[in-house]
């Protein structure tokens, strides 16, 4: 079976700097995979390559077995690749209802619809409701996003990506900055993501990584340093040296 997401010999150079160094990586169908690495390891560049914000210097990217290397970012979204952002990227002046509705109707090709009122289609409404419930946003649907509590904004951040009905979901530090009191709610929703969505989690927080992922890849200096099960990676002394040792200082 083709991997949900795969890269082969992916390279990105900025001038003389190699930000992504020959990365060959497989995200299996339905995986819960974590990508970790110290600051400056090239995690952000890697995501930007996957989503198409940056074009690779060489190498290939496959989505469900289809070569996506040359695809535009929005085409990749339509093909089932969605991401969240480490720093909230929401629409401050819109409500969560509109935000989710936007993503849902856009996916259904509604963005080309100039005439019908958003929400006049039954299937859009139903899906908004389902997503709002899944991400516990029903009680905040009609508030301005900028007025939401931070934890709710974080949930919305994931909800928007989820509304694109991805087969591959890239979660970029979903719990970053969420206060302890709201953390549990967020982690529970992440854990409850349906299994038919393959998830790549980029994370600093080791508790979250260990509780969520079945596999871990470690990125160091733009290259895959090692990869394995949670067991293997967490006990690997070299990983401790390059990564876990440093993370204590943070």
């Amino acid at each position: 079976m083709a991997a949900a997401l795969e890269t082969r010999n992916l390279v990105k150079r900025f001038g003389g700097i190699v930000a992504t160094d020959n990365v060959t990586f497989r995200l299996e169908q339905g995986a819960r995979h974590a990508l970790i690495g110290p600051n400056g390891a090239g995690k952000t560049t890697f995501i930007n390559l996957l989503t198409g914000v940056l074009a690779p210097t060489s190498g290939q990217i496959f989505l469900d077995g289809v070569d996506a290397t040359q695809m535009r970012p929005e085409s990749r979204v339509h093909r089932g690749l969605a991401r969240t952002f480490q720093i909230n990227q929401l629409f401050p002046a819109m409500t969560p209802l509109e935000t989710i509705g936007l993503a849902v109707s856009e996916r259904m090709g509604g963005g080309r619809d100039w005439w019908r009122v958003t929400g006049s289609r039954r299937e859009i409404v139903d899906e908004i409701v389902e997503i709002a419930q899944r991400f516990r946003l029903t009680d905040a649907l009609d508030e301005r996003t900028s007025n939401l509590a931070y934890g709710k904004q974080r949930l919305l951040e994931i909800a928007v990506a989820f509304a694109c009905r991805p087969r591959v979901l890239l979660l970029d530090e979903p719990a970053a900055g969420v206060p302890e009191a709201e953390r549990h709610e967020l982690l529970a929703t992440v854990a409850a993501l349906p299994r038919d969505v393959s998830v790549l989690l980029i994370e600093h927080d080791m508790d979250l990584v260990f509780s969520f992922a079945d596999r871990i890849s470690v990125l160091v200096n733009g290259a895959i340093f090692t990869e394995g099960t949670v067991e293997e990676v967490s006990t690997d002394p070299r990983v401790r040296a390059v990564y876990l040792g440093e993370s204590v200082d943070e």
Partner: protein
Amino acid sequence: MPADPIAKTAVPPSTADFVRRSLVRKGRWGVAEIGFWAVAAATLFLLPERHLILNEIAIIGLFALSLDLILGYAGIVSLGHAAFFGFGAYMAGILAKHGFADPLLGLVVSALAAALLGFVTSFLVLRGTDLTKLMVTLGVALVLGEIANQASWVTGGADGLQGISMGPVLGLFEFDIFGTTAYAYSLTVTFLLFIVARRIVVSPFGLSLRSIRDNPLRARAVGIPVNRRLVAVYTLAAAYAGVAGALLAQTTQFVSLDVLAFHRSADIMLVLVIGGAGYLYGGLLGAIGFKVLQDILSAWTPQYWQFWIGLILVVLVLVGRERLTDKAKALRPRSRGRLAGQAKVLPTTTAGEV
């Protein structure tokens, strides 16, 4: 949906209802809106001696509405929107001068021509910062102004385009010197185009525009083809501005270089800012405010009313535009009152919203 141990409440079955109503509500017309247009229609009969100025207001309102589409909904800062206004005006004027005197034909042709110009130039405003957009839009208007100035064999140059004579609207209503037909015509066109615009901004397309304005990065990440949407709305807005220009040319039966001048672009921005951007009525209310102000101020200090307009702009910005216009936005049925009614259905914190 897996069982959810920490949910605060079970979700009431009416959530779907709430979602639908909340979305559809924006498409509905509020009482204040209907009132607004009723009053506008009533002025046709109640203020016969003011039809000339009312005609101008309707045209400026439509022009500002078109700027609102790109500035308020798509976030493109333009200092050259007069390019489309002027282009439409010249188009309509030239057509009429060469024997195609039917006003509606002129409107359609001007709209199409301006849309084409908008489509072509839209690719220039996709890149760059606010400042480059500002300069490029300004540059396009200046170039057009220069062309109109030089091509005097077709535009009349600095003397203006004279000798326009319009046929009757729909073959029935002749333009009269009191501006009654003109006003009725402009108001109707503005109203019809307003209805279309209002429909568009609450459509998924309109929603995607707002998302681009708010956060283009995320809009892309949701799969929205940002550039294509911007091209589309820029083209649409250009067509609207072209129609406004054509209305001016047809109802005044004169076009001068003034329609492309910088102050047109600046004034229309001011009109929109007075009324508030991003809710469609801003342009119309702003047009009324602008004209009334102009009337009062120029009666008071005939030559120097620009000073007061400038002062108003400065104060408006310093005080904060949003604070003033948020109040006016209550005109649209996004008002808190209705929300409060809904709030009982859901465990919501809407009350805390400021």
